[in-house]
């Protein structure tokens, strides 16, 4: 009774409270709506990128902006030079990014995300190769830390020096744009150069001028302006001292741009011939490969003649990729969205991208691989771009489980031994030269048939992991001087090797424009160099060569405010290094880099060498001797020129290139080059294969027997069936 009474009193009370609360909320919201906003104004999100969404290209008649976002207007002939006339270079981050405001998104693309540890790095690709003929160095480098490559920072190459070495064939961006290395203050950032790919007027963009501006003048931020013929650049960042202050009295010595007024219209706009779909020729500047074969020899050797270039000159005989012959372009398959994650086109790419946390790759990219396009996938139809469905007459389907499409269709037709290949990235193809030998360093061999899984990792044939497939690869065997500590070998930068006073032993450095083969070293020479390295004092690292940690979030123009505290500090994790305050004790010097300590060794030809107890050279095995290989995708050969088109015995016979083709170790040590078969390279036994191949000459007998037996069986079955039908025994 009591409870009932309390309930009766609580119900109207609660109802009243609810009504009051609702009224208060309504009044408050009404007042808020009526009042002007008093909240602090937050920056509105940047406008979406401008697009026309037309297949007709947009004419880019646009103003160009410098790094400060100021519109660049040149002084016209007859006009008095304005005191504030811009002499700064064009910034494509600002110029292009003004409308394409998804510029940061583009930084996720393959060409720019190389230094991002969380980016998908995919299967191994072509590395940057540090090549130095004098020291016989050829070292695969990659920020992506692909297995058997070296991170540039680990071998004493900071972002600035990396850009100086390889910016010639690099789009810029990424770490080369955000680095805090000391010399970046003088050179400026190497921004994404949109035009190097997207220009459609080859006559209005000179990549060679850009390459020279980067490698020789160190005018990183001026390079795109120069390449786009927007003006002349006076001054060289390379001549500026390490203590250069852009705001100081030396500022006048900094590089300056004198713009060409004829490139600007009356409104100060410049017309850029650009296109979304990049032309093949733009891709080729960095992605040209030329097979130099074994020209200049009698065909018996696996190496071309040291000084000859007959192989290079034979390029007129080479066919183009069949897809290009048929009228396709690179970007028909190697497509990308705004994020510039260009489809690489290998099986397993979708899984690799999906494995990255938070990534939601487009499933249709699976149809841009060879098989995906020509056959389709389980969920996606094939036949894109009218890709024909291959027939593969007479090829047992078992081969599709054991071979990639490229094994039979890509790269040069395999011979009894690998051939040499020169690439734009490794051999600076596209830049003027006085002489290039077929055997010019670095030594890259192709095709090397390795068994890899869908991630591009070498796997045994019967491994428990994903089943591997044989795929053709290009391969480089590393060669370098290094130091070993606890069995770990770290390469020494070539200039540090030379600094140990080994020039007399190793010979002179060849001229910049001469691309020659590296002469082999004798064991005596190697022992002497190792002795010199062992006796060399601790290396002095110039402030300009100090590796600073990259900070991608740093503004593009960020630069260290001061030089590093100690010259010996080769590696530091600080993004900037401010001068220590007087009352703060100086930080302890960073430990010397790995390449500066330890026992000197030489690595070449899949062997490592060190000085023995008696002073003689000893060879030993170390994981650092392992070669680096990356898959070949192009050029794709047509069906008639594919491996196996002329019969099974192209592979199933003694001496077949895919099993018995010779790979050599390309040693820089005289007489130490060893030869292995492809099967050895895959660490596979060939007993069963040889036995299987030996059965092929008798295959006609097998076929004859089989067909004869089948015919007799058919007759028996037919006779029995007829007998049953005629006697009608089946009805009983």
């Amino acid at each position, binding site marked *: 009774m009591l409870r009932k009474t309390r309930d009766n009193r609580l119900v109207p009370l609660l109802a009243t409270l609810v009504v009051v609360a609702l009224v208060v909320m309504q009044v408050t919201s009404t007042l808020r709506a009526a009042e002007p906003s008093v909240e602090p104004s937050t920056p509105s999100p940047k406008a979406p990128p401008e697009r026309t969404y037309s297949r007709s290209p947009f004419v880019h008649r646009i103003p160009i902006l410098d790094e400060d976002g100021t519109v660049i207007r040149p002084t016209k002939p007859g006009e008095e030079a304005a005191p504030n006339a811009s002499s700064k270079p064009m910034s494509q981050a600002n110029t292009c990014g003004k409308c394409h405001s998804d510029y940061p998104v583009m930084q996720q693309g393959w060409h720019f995300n190389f230094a991002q540890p969380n980016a998908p790095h995919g299967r191994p690709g072509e590395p940057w190769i540090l090549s130095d003929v004098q020291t016989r160095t050829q070292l695969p480098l990659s920020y992506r830390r692909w297995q058997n490559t070296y991170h540039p920072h680990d071998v004493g190459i900071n972002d600035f020096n990396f850009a100086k070495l390889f910016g010639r064939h690099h789009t810029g961006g990424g770490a080369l744009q955000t680095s805090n290395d000391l010399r970046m203050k003088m050179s400026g950032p190497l921004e994404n150069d949109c035009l190097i790919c997207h220009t459609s007027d080859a006559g209005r963009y000179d990549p060679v001028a850009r390459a020279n501006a980067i490698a020789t003048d160190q005018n990183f931020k001026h390079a795109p302006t120069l390449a786009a013929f927007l003006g002349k650049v006076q001054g060289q960042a390379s001549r500026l001292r390490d203590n250069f202050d852009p705001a100081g009295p030396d500022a006048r010595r900094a590089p300056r741009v004198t713009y060409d007024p004829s490139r600007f219209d009356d409104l100060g706009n410049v017309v850029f011939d650009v296109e979304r779909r990049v032309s093949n020729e733009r891709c080729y500047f960095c992605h040209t490969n030329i097979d130099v074969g074994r020209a200049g020899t009698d065909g018996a050797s696996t190496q071309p003649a040291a000084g000859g270039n007959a192989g290079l000159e034979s390029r007129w005989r080479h066919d183009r990729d069949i897809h290009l012959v048929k009228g396709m372009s690179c970007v028909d398959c190697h497509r990308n969205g705004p994020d510039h994650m260009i489809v690489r086109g290998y099986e397993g790419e979708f899984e690799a991208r999906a494995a990255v946390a938070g990534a939601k790759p487009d499933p249709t990219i699976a149809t841009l691989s060879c098989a995906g396009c020509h056959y389709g996938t389980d969920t996606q139809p094939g036949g894109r771009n009218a890709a024909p469905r*291959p*027939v*593969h*007459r*007479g*090829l*047992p*389907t*078992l081969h*599709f489980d054991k071979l990639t499409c490229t094994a039979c269709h890509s790269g040069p037709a395999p011979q009894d031994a690998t051939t040499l290949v020169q690439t734009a990235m490794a051999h600076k193809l596209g830049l003027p030269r006085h002489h290039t030998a077929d055997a010019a360093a670095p030594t890259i061999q192709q095709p090397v048939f390795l068994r890899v899984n869908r991630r591009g990792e070498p796997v045994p044939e019967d491994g428990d992991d994903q089943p591997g497939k044989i795929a053709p690869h290009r391969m480089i065997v590393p060669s370098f001087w290094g130091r070993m500590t606890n069995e770990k070998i770290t390469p020494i930068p070539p200039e540090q090797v030379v600094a140990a006073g080994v020039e007399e032993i190793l010979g002179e450095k060849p001229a910049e424009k001469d691309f020659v083969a590296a002469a082999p070293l004798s064991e005596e020479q190697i022992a002497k160099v190792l002795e010199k390295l062992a006796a060399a004092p601790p290396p002095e690292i110039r402030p300009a060569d100090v590796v600073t940690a990259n900070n991608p979030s740093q503004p593009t123009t960020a630069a260290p405010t001061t030089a590093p505290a100690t010259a010996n500090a080769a590696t530091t994790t600080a993004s900037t290094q401010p001068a220590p305050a007087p009352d703060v004790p100086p930080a302890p010097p960073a430990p010397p880099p790995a390449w500066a300590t330890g026992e000197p060794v030489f690595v070449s030809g899949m062997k490592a060498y060190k000085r023995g107890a008696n002073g003689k050279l000893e060879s030993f095995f170390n994981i650092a001797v392992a070669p680096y290989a990356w898959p070949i995708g192009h050029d794709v050969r047509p069906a008639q020129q594919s491996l196996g088109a002329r019969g099974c015995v192209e592979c199933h016979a003694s001496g077949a290139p895919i099993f018995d083709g010779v790979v050599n170790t390309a040693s820089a040590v005289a007489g130490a080059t060893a030869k292995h078969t492809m099967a050895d390279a895959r660490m596979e036994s060939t007993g*069963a*294969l040889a*036995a*299987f191949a030996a*059965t092929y000459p008798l*295959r006609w*007998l*097998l*076929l004859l*027997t*089989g*067909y*004869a*037996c*089948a015919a*007799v*069986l*058919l007759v*028996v*079955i037919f*006779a*029995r069936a007829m*007998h049953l039908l005629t*006697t009608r*025994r089946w009805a009983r």
Partner: protein
Amino acid sequence: MMQMLSILAILLAVGLPVLDYAFFRPRRRAFGRDDAILRGVERAIYLVFVVALAGMVVSSIFMLAVGERMHRWMLILHMTLAPLFALCVTALAVLWQSTAAADDDLRRGPREPGERFAFCTVIVASFLTILSAMLGMMTWFGSDGQRLLLNIHRISSLVLFVAAAFLAWRLLSKQRSPAS
């Protein structure tokens, strides 16, 4: 899929003789002519046939059943035994045809329906197995055709295996007919 089918085939190959032993053995009659369970030549051919078939089954169906592939030495074993198997099964078929015709003429039916059906199955499955393998080696068929041929080869060989196992059991356990 193929692994499951292979395991099923092995189970059937073992299971059918067991069932036969349990239910039909008392009513079984002699196989072949009345004067012999098997003639000498026929017996030798049967023996080689069974051995060849066993080798081929081990190199293929057993490998698939345990999750392996038929490759390398197993493939070589398979292909080495293949002609032997083909010749034996053809010879047996010819013998069977002549025997069956004679039996029919005499209005005798020495074979039991199960054996007759099993033998017919062996012959038809062998024909399909051999022909699909031979056609697969020619350049007449593309990938789709090759896959079809491979599937025919696999399925027919599984059927062949089960039927041959049953038949071998019947022959090995055969007793002389009381009438003879």
